[in-house]
């Protein structure tokens, strides 16, 4: 009797936790945006009616997209080198990638404040080189946010892709070269297509991560480079405009969920092993 429900019994506490503390509150937040006293879509009309907020959404998408593309490129090439490195070196490289990943977002973003500041390392270096006399204003630009974001997410991309690349059997690479494929051709025609599902997973992780980030744009972009995360905080905790904040939250959920669902669908279609 008990046996038939044992699985349910053991999984229910965790299910309730997610249901009560995640699904209900988030659903309530989204639902609230449709219960506005001024009409069901008023908070969205506010959001899309404001050129400033539209610019924030657009900037966030832009930063997340550029970060994703750079992280894909850098991560894939590096992961390929890591996956082909001899055993001992490989573990060192993996540790070197894991370590920043385990260091907090605040700490890692903060490092770029020291590097990119007016009296920062990079400016001092450029002045020392004689490239410029005046320090460049590098902080609080879209570029500074992107650099720090790339820094934040490249390790994640490397680790994701090393796993995928190591899953490609050596046999396939040997088969390709026995059939006359040069190393470059093997990379293009065998390694890359087989890594595409992993690239998609990595892209989803990086895009959603950078699209919803708060600490990095707050530290390196400030008020001038407001993104969805910082806008949400500003609406909720500075302006106490909870309806406006809820609309931002709802838009963030819609964008992330559609990116995740869309990309997993594409990944499934592209995955040669699935059929």
């Amino acid at each position, binding site marked *: 009797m008990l046996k038939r429900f044992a699985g349910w019994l053991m999984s229910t506490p965790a299910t309730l936790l997610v249901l009560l503390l995640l699904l209900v509150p988030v659903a309530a937040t989204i639902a609230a945006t449709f219960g506005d006293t001024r009409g069901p879509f008023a908070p969205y009309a506010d959001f899309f009616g404001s050129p400033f907020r539209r610019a924030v959404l657009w900037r966030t998408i832009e930063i997340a997209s550029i970060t994703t593309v750079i992280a894909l490129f850098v991560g894939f090439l590096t992961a390929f080198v890591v996956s082909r490195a001899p055993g001992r070196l490989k573990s060192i490289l993996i540790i070197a990638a894991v370590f920043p990943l385990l260091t907090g977002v605040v700490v890692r973003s903060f490092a770029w404040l020291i590097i990119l500041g007016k009296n920062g390392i990079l400016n001092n270096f450029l002045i020392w080189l004689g490239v410029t006399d005046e320090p460049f204003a590098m902080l609080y630009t879209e570029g500074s946010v992107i650099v720090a974001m790339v820094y934040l997410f490249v390790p994640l991309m490397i680790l994701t892709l090393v796993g995928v690349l190591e899953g490609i059997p050596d*046999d396939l690479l040997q088969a390709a070269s026995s059939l006359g494929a*040069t190393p470059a051709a093997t990379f293009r025609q065998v390694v890359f297509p087989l890594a595409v599902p992993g690239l998609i997973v990595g892209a989803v992780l990086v895009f959603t991560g950078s699209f919803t980030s708060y600490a990095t744009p707050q530290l390196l972009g400030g008020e001038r480079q407001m993104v969805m995360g910082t806008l949400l905080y500003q609406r909720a905790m500075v302006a106490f405009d909870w309806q406006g904040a809820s609309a931002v939250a709802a838009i963030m959920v819609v964008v992330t969920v559609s990116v995740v669902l869309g990309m997993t669908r594409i990944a499934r279609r592209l995955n040669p092993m699935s059929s």
Partner: protein
Amino acid sequence: MTQPLTIDRLSAHYGKVQVLEDFSLKIAAGELVSLLGASGCGKTTTLRLIAGFLEPTGGTIRLGEQDLTRLPAHRRNIGLVFQNYALFPHLTVAENVGFGLKQRGVALPEREARVTEMLGRVELTDLGDRLPAALSGGQRQRVALARALVIEPPLLMFDEPLSNLDAKLRVGMRAEIRQMQRANGTTSVFVTHDQEEAFSISDRVAIMQAGRIMQFDTPETLYSRPANAFVARFVGFENLIEMRVVARKGDLVEAEAAGGALLTLSQADFGAIPDAFVLGARPEGLVVAGPDAPGIPATLGLRSYLGRAYQYLCDSPAGPLTAQGPLGAAQEAGSAARLQPVAAQCCILAPEA
């Protein structure tokens, strides 16, 4: 087109471990040669050296007039069939088969024609659009074969290609591979640990152990005239009895085993018998007879039923032996008997150094 393969004094290391030392092997043009041995004997290493996936520390590999030793793998032009087929999972059957032609810059119309023709030869004409995941093991094996053959390589190599197939399919594929290879006359190297497979498919077989060739001969010679104890055991001579000649009478030789058992052997059966030798006997080469008959005295132990005969584990002054007796006369454990050699199931070896 078809070329002889000459391996001369090849050495290879994995780290500090020497896996091959002074390994030499000559394979004639059009011949199919198997490298046979247990795992770790160096057969796969040899194949990988020839393919160019490992670099030798010494020696040369030549195919016809061409020195392959330092040539990168992708320029060696060797057709390779992998143990687990190594089909590209993201390419269709036709694209897999056409992969090598594409690398060679063969134009699309010709490529398609050759792929279609090759798929016809391996009877996969209708499956060209499938992905490898949608194929059975036997079909994958055929695709792998087609992919290696379509580039018309002067040398074909097979790395335990049949070990992932079930027994029935294995025998069928064996015949297909042999027929294709004969039809093309391509020099071939076949790596396997399965003796029956190696013997049935090959012109000659190299039996390997610890990075050395123990004997390189036709299957018939290996089976009936092994050159040493290792090969003898490998081909089923389970009983190896050290003997010493005590008397010679024309073709007949009287020899004594440890413990004093006397046997009479004929040089007409075995060729010249040296003064000290080892008698190799398969289980069916030692027949159980009554305790008063001539032969090696033995006490019978565990009996097992083989269908065509009984097999006995025996104790003898010459050591533990395995012998067989007729079905009509089952013997109980503990009974005394004599074991008589049957010349056709025995061999004569030089004593071990």
